[in-house]
């Protein structure tokens, strides 16, 4: 038996509610299965399980539960069910086979809910199914009619405030900025997009994402977490991509192993992530896994950004919008597309010298977009 716990979906989460179970007691679960929808300040999150076996004892829905609370029990698939689970608890009677004893109110409710009467179990001693049994069966098995989505802006603001206050209190930030000649990247993008239908076109954002992921391969000191002020390297390069939500707030879910994907794959991942961040349906691993954050302000954003590190991460890389600027090339002033890059680093883990090398590597990667 292993307990399936309420995950901490980021440094800023203390509790959440199960909005919906996507499995029933007795269902087989595998690592990576989405088993529940949890309502958090970041909206409705699909929670994955990382246990293998048969799930049981599901926590009630719509009840606020702290991080670490037991949501369910998972029994190894080949292990026999423990006695307690096989035998009805004391005081529970099973309706005799043949004819189901059910109260009229319970029958009406069960039919209205579309429940199979044969699956109902009685909890009281006389073996008759009551209204309470039907209600509890419905809450266990019936999926909610509408998938919950969206988020509460006031709650999200509170959560951002808590995480960012912790960051400013605990993390000794240092900041670096640089300017990147984005002309080669822009020209390459334009050419790539020229003969493609809109569905296959790329945005500049994917080049920034891939270039950053590449640079992190060279400088892994910025990819990971702090544990009591000590650095713990990330298990992969899982870039948290900051996404502004309509109506205020933001969320930075992970694009896993970003350095290994092609640009079209990253574009697909980004499109999918933005859509789910706004409509609900982010997965729990996407919120717990980011090893660094990248924030790109986009074409209508400000010219530059200095980020605040999301604890327990150790760095955040920022990109402003692309601007046309005078730029010296081979002793001549030319008009070039320029983008301001920035790094906020955790001084307990790295220094500005190394940070400068990271920004340099990002710059370099963007000068050869065809190799990204």
């Amino acid at each position, binding site marked *: 038996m292993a307990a399936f716990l309420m995950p901490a979906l980021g440094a800023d989460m203390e509790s959440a509610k199960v909005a919906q179970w996507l499995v029933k007691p007795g269902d087989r679960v595998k690592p990576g299965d989405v088993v529940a929808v949890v309502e958090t300040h970041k909206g409705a999150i699909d929670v994955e399980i990382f246990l293998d076996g048969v799930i049981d004892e599901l926590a009630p829905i719509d009840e606020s539960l702290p991080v670490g609370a037991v949501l369910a029990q998972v029994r190894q698939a080949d292990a026999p069910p423990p006695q307690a689970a096989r035998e009805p608890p004391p005081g529970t009677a099973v309706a005799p086979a043949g004819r189901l004893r059910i109260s009229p109110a319970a029958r009406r409710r069960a039919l209205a809910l579309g429940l199979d009467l044969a699956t109902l179990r009685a909890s009281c001693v006389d073996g008759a199914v009551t209204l309470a049994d039907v209600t509890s069966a419905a809450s266990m098995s019936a999926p909610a009619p509408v998938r919950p989505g969206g988020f509460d802006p006031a709650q999200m603001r509170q959560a951002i405030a808590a995480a960012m206050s912790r960051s400013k209190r605990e993390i000794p930030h240092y900041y670096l900025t640089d300017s990147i000649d984005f002309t080669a990247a822009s020209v390459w993008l*334009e050419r790539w*997009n*020229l003969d493609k*239908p*809109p*569905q296959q*076109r790329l*945005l*500049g*954002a994917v080049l920034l994402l891939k270039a950053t992921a590449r640079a992190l391969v060279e400088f892994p000191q910025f990819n990971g977490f702090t544990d009591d002020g000590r650095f713990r390297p990330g298990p992969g390069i899982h870039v948290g991509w900051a996404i*502004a939500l*309509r*109506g205020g707030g933001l969320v930075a879910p992970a694009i896993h192993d970003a350095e290994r994907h092609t640009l079209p794959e990253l574009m697909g991942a*980004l*499109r999918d992530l*933005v859509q789910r961040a706004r409509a609900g349906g982010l997965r729990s691993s996407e919120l717990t896994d980011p090893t660094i954050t990248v924030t790109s302000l*986009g*074409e*209508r954003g400000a010219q530059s950004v200095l980020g605040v590190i999301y604890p327990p991460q150790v760095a955040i890389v920022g990109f402003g919008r692309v601007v046309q600027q005078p730029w010296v090339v081979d002793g001549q002033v030319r008009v070039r597309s320029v983008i301001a890059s920035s790094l906020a680093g955790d001084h307990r883990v790295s220094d500005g010298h190394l940070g400068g090398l990271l920004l340099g590597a990002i710059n370099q990667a963007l000068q050869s977009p065809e190799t990204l």
Partner: protein
Amino acid sequence: MNAAEILHLATNVLAGIAPEADLTQVRGNEDLREALDLDSMDFLNFVIGLGQGSGVAIPESDYPRLFTLDQLVAYLLAHGAQAGPSGG
């Protein structure tokens, strides 16, 4: 498609991208990106929706001709918009 059908298509696509926006408040000559706070991903999705709904192939270099409702109606009319499978 006529102008009214194109406008209907555009508002349908925008409603999917910015569900909270009141499209009746957007003037015909207003930049949609400003009026509805569309980022480049939103705008790309808008172009995809317009292309699918009208059958018009929209090159990236023509994006600036789709920034307002008036502009995009004229553009799609001129390029022979046909009601597609997902068209309004």
